[in-house]
């Protein structure tokens, strides 16, 4: 039984810190979402945590088996109970860290949050954890109560209650799944998030590209442009309310910022030449991007309040794909100043840059993980005709290739820093894929048509 193992890859956050952080987030979330009294949200009826907590270990290189769990239908409203349990099960399964046992093998079809389960029924099918819950209508709201049980320990790991408006059921389910995931892995959740991407249709020689956003699991796709203009590389602002992207709609290709809710868009700056490769700073106050001048591309930053522009790199090279460290103090970018595409790190104000990639091949599209406790930079590596997605530490050590093949490109981090999403081209079609930082998990992300250039939002606030 894995119930006494510890997490080797997440040493920084103590259980107390994680619990406190999670508690703050969920409370804030519930309040912001619902405008309900604080008493309705948060932990209820929690029993003391077991001495040896059930947790899954995910370590690079080491053998890894997903944890078998059971997610029976939630009780309460039959339709909602089935829907929420199904989304929770799908989230946990797609994370790659869990195997959701076949409901046909369950001795009880549903388990509510109001009972202590008959653990023997779940031990018999070797479920390590049981996610049980109840979903009900209460005063115009939908309320979900969830308990996660350590089946073999016979103890409750988490007991929480969340509420939302009836049109937000999927989000409610993602929040429930985040609570279970977080408890069982020790990592922060990431299911309550969205992905911006480029929807692709039409032949490769004349591809139609539209900006789109969806829930992280491919649901609720919404198109933000109509496909008349070529659009590339959307990137979420830290508030998730804006997207910076590149558009060919105004003649010269330029960087624009789009308000996701209103659809209003704004040209960034008044520059004489092409701008591209935008990325927000972690505080949302600054945009970095590349500007082309003749044969060279250099990196600039613009203060989005005062509009002051600063040139961060100079010289006869292609400097692009800038991405901030989570504390905003440094920027990783790619440059061919040494002959081929390689990764460099500089201070946010520019100046001397140090090269961090020294392996064979070319390195591009670096993105800094949002998790300050586990510093990683994800990248695309081209080597020997293969396009790989990998991660390395910000000092360039610890390179690990997560996937490789004909064409993999453009990683973006999950809000918890445990996964990257990227796009893969196979047979002339692009699609989105998910890999975890250990390389144990590789999953296709559903999209309505071809898709590329994913940008993962922070957790929804």
């Amino acid at each position, binding site marked *: 039984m894995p119930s006494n193992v510890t997490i080797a890859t997440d040493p920084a956050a103590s259980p107390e810190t994680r619990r406190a952080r999670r508690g703050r987030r969920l409370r804030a979330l519930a309040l912001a979402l619902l405008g309900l009294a604080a008493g309705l949200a948060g932990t209820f009826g929690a029993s003391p945590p077991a001495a040896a907590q059930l947790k899954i270990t995910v370590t690079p290189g080491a053998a890894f088996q997903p944890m078998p769990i059971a997610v029976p239908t939630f009780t309460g409203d039959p339709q909602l109970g089935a829907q929420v349990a199904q989304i929770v099960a799908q989230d946990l399964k797609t994370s790659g860290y869990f195997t959701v046992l076949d409901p046909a093998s369950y001795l009880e079809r549903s388990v509510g949050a109001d009972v202590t389960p008959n653990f023997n029924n779940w031990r018999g099918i070797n479920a390590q954890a049981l996610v049980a819950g109840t979903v009900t209508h209460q005063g115009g709201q939908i309320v979900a109560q969830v308990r996660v049980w350590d089946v073999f320990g016979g103890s409750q790991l988490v007991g929480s209650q969340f509420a939302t408006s009836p049109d937000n059921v999927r989000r409610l389910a993602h929040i429930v799944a985040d609570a279970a995931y977080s408890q069982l892995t020790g990592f922060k959740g990431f299911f309550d998030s969205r992905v911006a991407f480029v929807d692709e249709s039409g032949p490769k020689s004349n591809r139609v590209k539209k900006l789109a956003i969806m829930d992280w699991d491919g649901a609720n796709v919404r198109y933000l442009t109509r496909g008349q203009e070529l659009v590339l590389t959307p990137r979420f602002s830290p508030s998730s309310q804006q997207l910076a992207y*590149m558009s060919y709609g105004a003649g010269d290709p330029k960087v624009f910022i789009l308000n996701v809710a209103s659809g209003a868009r704004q040209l960034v700056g008044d520059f004489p030449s092409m701008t591209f*490769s935008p990325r927000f700073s972690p505080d949302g106050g600054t945009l970095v991007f*590349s500007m082309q001048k003749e044969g*060279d*591309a250099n990196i600039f930053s613009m203060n989005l309040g005062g509009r002051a522009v600063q040139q961060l790199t100079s010289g006869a090279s292609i400097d692009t794909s800038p991405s901030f460290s989570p504390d905003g103090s440094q920027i990783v970018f790619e440059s061919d100043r040494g002959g081929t595409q390689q990764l460099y790190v500089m201070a946010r104000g520019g100046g001397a840059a140090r090269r961090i990639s020294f392996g064979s091949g070319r390195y591009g599209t670096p993105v800094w993980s949002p998790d300050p406790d586990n510093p990683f930079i994800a990248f695309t590596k*081209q080597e020997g005709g293969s396009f790989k997605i990998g991660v390395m530490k910000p000092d360039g050590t610890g390179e690990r290739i997560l996937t490789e093949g004909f064409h993999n490109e453009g990683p973006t981090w999950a809000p918890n820093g445990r996964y990257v999403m990227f796009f893969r081209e196979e047979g002339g079609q692009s699609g989105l894929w998910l890999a975890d930082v250990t390389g144990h998990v590789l999953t296709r992300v559903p999209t309505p048509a071809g898709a590329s250039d994913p940008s993962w939002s922070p957790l929804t606030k």
Partner: protein
Amino acid sequence: MWSELGLIRGAKFAAVLATSLTLAACASQQDNAAGMGGAGGAGAATPGSQQDFVVNVGDRVFFTVDSSDLTSEARSILDRQAVWLAKYPRYTVTVEGHADERGTREYNIALGARRSTSARDYLIARGVASTRLKTISYGKERPVAVCDAENCWNQNRRAVTVLNGTN
């Protein structure tokens, strides 16, 4: 306005032609450029027309992998373009830079810009007024040849001189 519409149609026709030739045979770049002349019917092109430029002069030059250096073949095509543009000063042109699909998106946007700049600078050195020339990069977004092999990719690493209409 009338002439602009005509030019757009002409450009599309040329692109379709190039694609179908690529699919028909693994032609070398040189063969392909010559083939375009044959298939387009050189005799039919009105001197000074878009078709004349594409068919009899050659509207594009090709590059080796990750390079924006002009080959001797590319320079001779650009020499012909400069002569033709001197003869027909009513045109302004946009030099489009393109990259093949075997690179990352943003790098290839910059690489395409390097290629268009390289071709444009050569045209200027051959006497075309810089005021008649502008550049744009499409990176790897607009391939003319689509297959997962080098004989397509080398068609896509290109700078295309597109006639915009009259001054």
